Every structure is written in structure tokens, then in C-alpha cells.
């Protein structure tokens, strides 16, 4: 059955959308008209410019509202998501003990040029993030966090040496799609070295989704709002199912 929805401002199907953008135009009536026409040409109706701010260097900031006639049919939506249920730390530890019967080894790193460890640390470090302990704290994970700027080769060598069950890769910097290049490089190397099917390949970062991860050849991807509990449960259940 069709289920058509539109953005909601304060009345069903009013289609109201908030917009904020800069244009290389002057901060005057001419610039305002340019912004209005631009919004209309995006397919919005009744564009209303509510604020104009001079940004200097010939740029102006516009804040605007528009009403869209576009809609979406929820009954047709299909997304790829990580479908394993999420368990807390104790449940995951018990699950591994009962269903796998040995500790799982996870090697993680922030690879190549990326120097930002915040993502990998949130998932792996003892402390974790936002009240969820990291994988190091789990009894049934042997978690090895290699830190930042780790060359793909070194990550794979470590995973081979430790006979890892899963590799966790974090990518925070996404300028010019560097994260896609880095992740592709890792997976290609893993394939060349015959490691791809020996362990789970999981990536994460603020601009990553499960869908993108699958597209890049990974087993799973975790975006913003993912915690050690999500990643830990996924690894445990997937490996148990593979047995």
C-alpha cells in the first residue's frame, strides 16, 4: 500500500523546508532575488528569504524557507542496514562464550593519511564513548587498536600475524573522497594477499554507511551514532553464524 509523505512544518503536507547557503552575490535586493529564483529552480514553491548576511569578499549568506511539492512513497523504500540485533557488553561476552567458545581477535586502525583516532577510539578503547565501553573492555574480545596513520600494509600484516577474526577501519577525513580511496586500497590489498575471505572487514566513520561499505566490498559499515555495542554484536553474531 502506498504511503506518501512530504516534509512537515506545522501542518500535514505543507512541505516546508529550511535552507541555508551562500552565494557569490551582493547583499542587496538583487542578491535576494537571485537567491529566490535559485530556490524556485530547485523545485520549491513560495520561497521566502528570511535572512541575508554579508560574508565579505562578495559573498552573501541566505537563510530561507521553501515549500516542496516533492514527496516520497515510504512503502517503496529499501535500505541496506546491519540487521543483527544489538546486545550490551555482558550479553555479547556471554553470546561469544556460548556460541563460539573462544576469544575473538579484532584489529583496528585509522588507515593511511587519516590522523583522527576519535572514531576508532570510541569503538575500541577501554573507556568507549557516551557510556558504552569499548571492545578492549570486553572479556571475549582481544582488541588491538593500532591508532592513526597506519599504512594498509601494516594493518593487514598485523591481522595476519594475530589471525584476526575482524578488521576495523576508521576514516574520519573525507575531503575529496579520500576515505573512499583509502578504503578501496585496503580491500584491494586484502584481496591480493588472499586475506579478504579470512576475516570480517568492517569500516566506520561519520560519512560512512552500511550501504557504502557493501559497495566498497566490506562486510559492514557503521556511521554516526554507532557504538561498540553495535560493532561487537555484529561481529559476534556474524562469526557465530558462519561456523
Amino acid at each position, binding site marked *: 500500500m502506498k504511503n506518501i509523505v512530504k516534509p512537515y512544518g506545522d501542518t500535514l503536507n505543507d512541505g516546508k523546508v529550511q535552507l*541555508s*547557503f*551562500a552565494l557569490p552575490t551582493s547583499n542587496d535586493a538583487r542578491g535576494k532575488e537571485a537567491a529566490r529564483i535559485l530556490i524556485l529552480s530547485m523545485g520549491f514553491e513560495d520561497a521566502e528569504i528570511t535572512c541575508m*548576511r554579508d*560574508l*565579505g*569578499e562578495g*559573498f552573501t*549568506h541566505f537563510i530561507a524557507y521553501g515549500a516542496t511539492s516533492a514527496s516520497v512513497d515510504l512503502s517503496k523504500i529499501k535500505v541496506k542496514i546491519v540487521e543483527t540485533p544489538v546486545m550490551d557488553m555482558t550479553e555479547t561476552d556471554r553470546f561469544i562464550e556460548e556460541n563460539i567458545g573462544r576469544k575473538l581477535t579484532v584489529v583496528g586502525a585509522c588507515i593511511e*593519511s*587519516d*590522523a583522527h*583516532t*576519535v572514531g576508532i*577510539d570510541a569503538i575500541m*578503547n577501554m*573507556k568507549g564513548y*557516551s*557510556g558504552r565501553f569499548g571492545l578492549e573492555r570486553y572479556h571475549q574480545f582481544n582488541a588491538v587498536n593500532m*591508532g*592513526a*596513520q597506519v599504512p594498509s600494509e601494516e594493518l593487514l600484516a598485523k591481522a595476519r600475524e594475530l589471525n584476526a577474526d575482524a578488521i576495523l577501519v576508521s576514516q574520519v*577525513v*573525507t*575531503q*575529496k573522497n*579520500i576515505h573512499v580511496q583509502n578504503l578501496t586500497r585496503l580491500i584491494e590489498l586484502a584481496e591480493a594477499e588472499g586475506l579478504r575471505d579470512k576475516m570480517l572487514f568492517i569500516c566506520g566513520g*561519520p*560519512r560512512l554507511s552500511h550501504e557504502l561499505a557493501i559497495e566498497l566490498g566490506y562486510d559492514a559499515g557503521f556511521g*554516526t551514532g554507532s557504538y561498540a555495542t553495535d560493532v561487537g554484536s555484529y561481529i559476534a553474531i556474524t562469526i557465530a553464524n558462519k561456523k
Partner: protein
Amino acid sequence: MLKLVLDNSLVSRARDAAAKITGDLKWLFESQSSVTIERTVLRLMGIDGATEDGKPLPNVVIDHLQEKSALFSGAAIRIGNAMLKHGLSAQEVAEKVAAGELDLSAVPAAEPQKLYELLGKLSDEMLAHIRSQRENRDSFFEKYGARRQPAIYVIVATGNIYEDATQARAAAYNGADVIAVIRSTAQSLLDYVPYGATTVGFGGTYATQENFRIMRKALDEVSEELGRYISLTNYASGLCMPEIAAMGAIERLDLMLNDAMYGILFRDINPKRTLLDQYFARMINAFAGIEIQTGEDNYLTTSDAVEKAYTVTASQLLNESFALLSGVKLNKMGLGHAYEIDPEMEDSFSYELAHALLTRTLFPDAPVKYMPPTKFASGNIFKTHLMDAMFNFVGQLTNQGVQLLGMMTEAIHTPHLVDRSLAIENAEYIFKAVKNLGDNLELKPDSFVNNRANSVLSEATVFLEKVAKDGMFSAMANGEFADIRRPETGGKGLDGVFQRDENYYNPFMEKMKEELGI
């Protein structure tokens, strides 16, 4: 301003321990040198440029000397000998080495008097230039007025220096006082400084002398238009610390991020190498009147900001002590700290206030650098904007030196033009709204804020005393800092450190030491 009542005996114990820790490393500063220190000497002698395949001439010459085992007395003497023998300039000597036409190890030693006269003249010329840049800065501030406090500091990070210049001018127009040009990710691990203007990079573009020049020119123009001196900053950190400091001194940068501890812990650079490099880099900064900035905020992004608050205080005290050894004045020490406590925590604001006041109280003369929320910034830009406002509130209330503005899109991308402008609007509104509020308030002696500040100080003191007992290097090897183990012989760049011989001579270091009174 709000006043803390600190336990003064703790303050002096902590400072004594820090002085002991840094003092125990004097042997390193007095007996060793490194490839980047020697490349700095070459740059200060006027050697610049690169070979066709992009290798900088200072690297060509130092690699040549290292290969010939001819670096132990320092590069200056070797270049001086060749200049006298062949009647060439320092630059011409370097070009001949690059062309394979000159073996510096085969040049006979010149008559000492002539050699030292030549090196004296060359170093006087460059130091006079750096001194004149310092005076230029002073006269700009005199003409346009002193920097506001807290100063508004924003970053540009387009990856293209020309685009960066446009964004920097717009930021200045919107109210920024300090512009930081973010470097390309991983430049800290390059053992050379790229040459020329650059329009590429990830998360920023390279620190090069030409890029410094382009940005300085753009900011000088906009300073004149606005009648406000806009300061420029970059990063003298990583494997080329003193070289970048020298480039900044030559091109009149005003601030420099300069923190060996950061490189050791978070970039895995060898401790000996980078502490040694920092010693000379800070001396150059001190001589050039450049404000150094340190990276204590990183302790909080990698660990819990409440539990590990004391590591910030400890690192600040160590950085102060290291800076004093290099002749940096107290009013040029931009020690760092950050607003990074989990916003879900009850009374997080009171903790932040206590930590911020502790820094200001311990270092009353320092233009402390206060860093914004990053760890708990999220894709919810509206919430992040609100957290930035609370951060700005603490910044003004405690009168921080430099407020590094948070961006509402911190967790998403390098700042868009609009993001930066909104961040400045946020800060200017808050700064104005609570401008003199602090003068009306006082803390109860038994208040949470006062007690918390003292307990952080006490933890920092105990920690520093332990490090003083164990020694800096073994403390690092044992993971005492940020839970990261960094052995004395591990990390990147140790092969670039060497023991000086008895003839070692670095004319710049000698003269700067003399002028700085160290």
C-alpha cells in the same frame, strides 16, 4: 574576573617538578643536533628552492653531508668553507651540490678567522631581517591597536592556498583576529618541507614558505582595509619543527603551534628527536616574537575530559618549563586546553569553568589557547552551535587569551564560508553579552568550582612528581602520558639525531641564545 583560591604550595611543588623534568634533558639540548636543525641553519643562511623532482635543496645538502659522514660539526662550517674556497653564495653552493659538482666533505677547512667572520656576517643579516619582521608586527599592533581578548581564532582548510586566502579575508571581514591555515593531513610525518605554492592536500594544504608569503600578503592587505592587525598562524610541529619555525619567522607569522609532546604521543615521532627539535624551534619563535601554542586539547579528545583533566595541567606546566629553557617569554606562551566534557554529564559547565579558571590562574600572563568542543560535536549542527555558545561563555567569563572557535559543522566537514561566519557571530554576541559579568561575581571558597580546580592541580602535582622521579623518557615508555607507550628509541625520526663533535657550530643558535639571555 572570577578568582580561584589555589593551594600555593601545590603550585610551587608542581612547577619545581616540571623544572626538574625538563632540566634533566639539558644534556640532549646541549650535545645533540638533528637533520632538521641543520636544514634550518641552511635555510637561515639563505638556501631555498628544490630540485626538478621536488627535493628541497636543504634536504639535498644535509643528505649529502650525512652520506659523507661530514655533519658532526654542523652544516654551517661546511657551507662556509665551500663559499670561501669557491667564491660562491650559500645558494650557489647548494645548487652545485645538487648538480653533483661539489663534494662538501672534500673542501679543505678555511682559515678559522675568515670562516667565523663570514658565518657571523651571514647570520647577522638573517637575524636582522627576522628582528625587522618582529618590529613590523609591533608597529602594526601599535598602529591598529592591541589584539582583543579573547582573540577570535578561526581556521581555513580548503586545501588550496589561493582559496584559503579568499576565505581568510572573508573571515577577517566577519571579525576574526587570528587565521590558522590548516596543513595537509600527515605533513607532520614528512622529513622535508615542500617547496612553492600548493593547491592540493587533504583537510588542508602544505605549510610552505611561499604559502606563508601568499597568506601574509593577503592578511596585510585586509588588516589595512579593516584597521585591525590580523594575525597568521601555522604549525611548527612534526619532523620539520625548526625549519617551519624559521620560515614563519622570515615571513612574519604571528603564532605557531609548537608542541613536541603532541608529536610524540599522537604522531609517534621519536621523543629525543622532537624534544631536541622543539628546543631550537622555540628559540626561533622566541627570537621572532612569535607566540607559541601547545596542543593539550588532544589529551581530552583521546581520553575522558574529567578523569584526565590533570594531564592537561601537567602538560601545560611542562610546556611552560620547556619554553622557558628556549627563552620564550611568559606572554608568548599560548598553552592549550579545551572544552570537551560530555554534554550529557550533569554540571558539565561547572567542571569546564573550573578547568578553564585553573589554566588562567596558573598562567596569568599567558595568552592561553582555549579549544572548542569537538569530541561531542555531532551532525546535529544546532546542538553543536549551542555547545559552542557555552564554550564561548566560559571563554569570556574566564578571559582566555585565544578562543579557537568551534564550528557547528565540526563533525561533518572542514568549515564552509557560512559556518565560519556563524561561529564568529556566535562568539561576538556572547563576548559582548557577558563582557563584564565576571567582575560582578565571586566564587565561594568551598564552592564546587574552587574545590575541583584544586583537586585537578593536586592530581597534576602528584603526577609530575612521579615523572620527575622516573624521568621523562621512562615515564613515556611506561605509558604515563595519555596511556600511550612511547619508548625512547621508538617512533619516527631517531635516525636523524646525531651527537655533535667538539667543533660543532650553529651561528644562529649562539646568537639567539645570547640575545634571549639563555
